[in-house]
């Protein structure tokens, strides 16, 4: 167990280092950051001063060592746009995205798992066909379009939900739905197919022969076996959302999360903030991956923690 944690952490660190180096290279060496960040009409003196402020006048290897040292202290420098530490902004926005992701994907799980199970109980039955149809529909609708549809429907037409921002708890409903529905569609198909597979296994027959209640056989014996692929997809959906896909939903609903912030930082050429966001996303991905490995082991004892 200790060895497992150790190895996973090392792997994680390597991934984060890699991402950091790529960020460094892309922002320093591809094009001129000063050119990008300062307005066109700025004077040579202004440029020189700015270069000095960011330390861009020093040799590249010194810059790199500095850059890494700062990252260890989670110090990316001040956001050019908001004039405050970039990491402060990240820490302010990231929880909003985590909240949105949790509610959206949580909703998807709560609906998709029972729905997939019920569909799997009678493949080809009425519930199954409806489930497959709805999920195919969900898969083929683009997310931004879904978001706009919700706005037209619930905000404009029925006037029951607020359109944008995050002022009240009601504000999360539409963005979370928009975020959750494609996930729900993918998840329900997977739950359905995994459960159909599991319900045909011999151990299910054994469990019934033991006289165990239906709910226990399906909901505990079979579901735990189907848990591995299900958790893999859920983990992937969470990673996807935290690593940038939330941007669509956050933009449509002006949800003040990390995705929206990333777009704004890009629009304003705020390289400092972009670096901080990319770095954070990488850390999120690594952390979730490690967490998922633990969950796998909990679900399936055959997987060795190595």
């Amino acid at each position, binding site marked *: 167990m200790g060895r497992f944690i150790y190895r996973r952490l090392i792997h994680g660190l390597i991934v984060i280092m890699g991402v950091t180096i790529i960020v460094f290279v892309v922002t320093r060496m591809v094009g001129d950051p000063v050119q990008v960040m300062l307005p066109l009409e700025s004077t040579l003196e202004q440029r020189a001063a700015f270069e000095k402020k960011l330390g861009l006048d020093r040799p590249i290897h010194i810059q790199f060592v500095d850059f890494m040292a700062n990252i260890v202290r989670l110090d990316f420098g001040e956001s050019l746009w908001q004039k405050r530490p970039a990491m402060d902004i990240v820490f302010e926005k990231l929880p909003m995205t985590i909240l949105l992701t949790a509610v959206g994907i949580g909703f998807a799980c709560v609906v998709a798992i029972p729905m997939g199970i019920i569909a799997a109980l009678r493949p080809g039955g009425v519930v199954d066909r409806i489930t497959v149809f709805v999920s195919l529909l969900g898969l083929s609708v683009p997310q931004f379009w879904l978001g706009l549809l919700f706005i037209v429907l619930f905000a404009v037409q029925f006037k029951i939900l607020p359109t944008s921002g995050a002022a009240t708890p009601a504000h999360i409903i539409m963005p979370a739905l928009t975020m959750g529905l494609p996930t729900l569609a993918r998840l329900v198909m997977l739950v359905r197919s995994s459960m159909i597979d599991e319900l045909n296994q*011999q151990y299910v027959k054994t469990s*019934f022969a*033991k*006289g165990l209640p239906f709910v226990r056989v399906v909901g505990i014996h079979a579901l*735990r076996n189907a848990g591995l692929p299900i958790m893999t997809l859920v983990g992937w959906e969470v990673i996807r959302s935290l690593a940038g896909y939330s941007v669509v939903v956050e933009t449509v609903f002006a949800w003040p999360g990390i995705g929206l912030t990333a777009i704004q930082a890009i629009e304003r050429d705020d390289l400092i903030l972009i670096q901080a966001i990319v770095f954070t996303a990488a850390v999120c991905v690594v952390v979730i991956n490690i967490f998922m490995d633990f969950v796998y082991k909990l*679900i399936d004892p055959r997987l060795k923690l190595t």
Partner: protein
Amino acid sequence: MSASRNVPLLEVRDLVVNFYTRGGVVQASRGVSFQVDYGQTLGIVGESGSGKSVAVQAVMGLISTPGRIEGGDILFQGRSLLDQAGKKFVREVRGKDISMIFQDPMTSLNPVFTIGTQITEVLRHHMGMTRDQARRRAMDLLGLVDINAPEKRLKQYPYEMSGGMRQRVMIAMALACEPQLIIADEPTTALDVTIQAQILELLTDLQQRLQVSVILITHDLGVVAQLCHRVAVMYAGRIVEVGDADQVFASPVHPYTKGLIRATPRLDVVTERMVSIDGVPPDLISPPRGCAFSPRCDQAKKDCLRAQALTPLGDDRHVSCWCAIKGDTR
């Protein structure tokens, strides 16, 4: 301990089970009748696909879509498992008074739960035991099936055990609630030969010690001759001959039974050659009219195209064959 002893422990009457598949209706049981008495072992033999598993799965209430029980009755201690009240009764009985051991121990246990969980859940469900009581009983059960270090074994997962060990666990699980009837569907087919012998020995020993009734499905006539009091021979969804095992083996009546016995290599007799039964088992979607064995039977005649019920032949032997009834088979 139970209802009056003049009704058999289990009686299956004219059981009809059909599977509604895309290719057509598979008539897996076409009027199966047999009975098992207290403390007795019934062997069921017959070629692959003859409907042995389906018949016993019907007893366990394990027939599910696309299969349907469409006729006959199953009586356990005189009470129907199929009528309205039986639906509830079967839930009480299954896993408690009747338990089942399956063919492949590698897939019969749930891979993601410990042996302990899988044994104790039966005890907790049927006997209402506490976690602790169930654990202690589970250890006793593992001892009963000759598994040592039960404490350690309870914490293990199926993948940590050999096939023979897993089948012992299955047997322990089947014994958990002191059943009256254990159904073993080819319990040794998937195991190594040496392990097969051990498992069969264990089963016989337990059967005698606990005086439990057993239905043993097997392809091995030698095993039936050795272990079973009675034997039922199945062909194409029907029982074609049933009776005292010794008598059936000594003087088989039905041509199919004769064929099966002739096709079994014997260690004690030097046979010139292995004789297999010519032809293939019939398609159960459209089985032959009358006697299903007629296309392969060398004694077939016109009469054989008419249906023939299982007819008593003295003692407790029942045979469904036209020749047998006219007594001109020998």
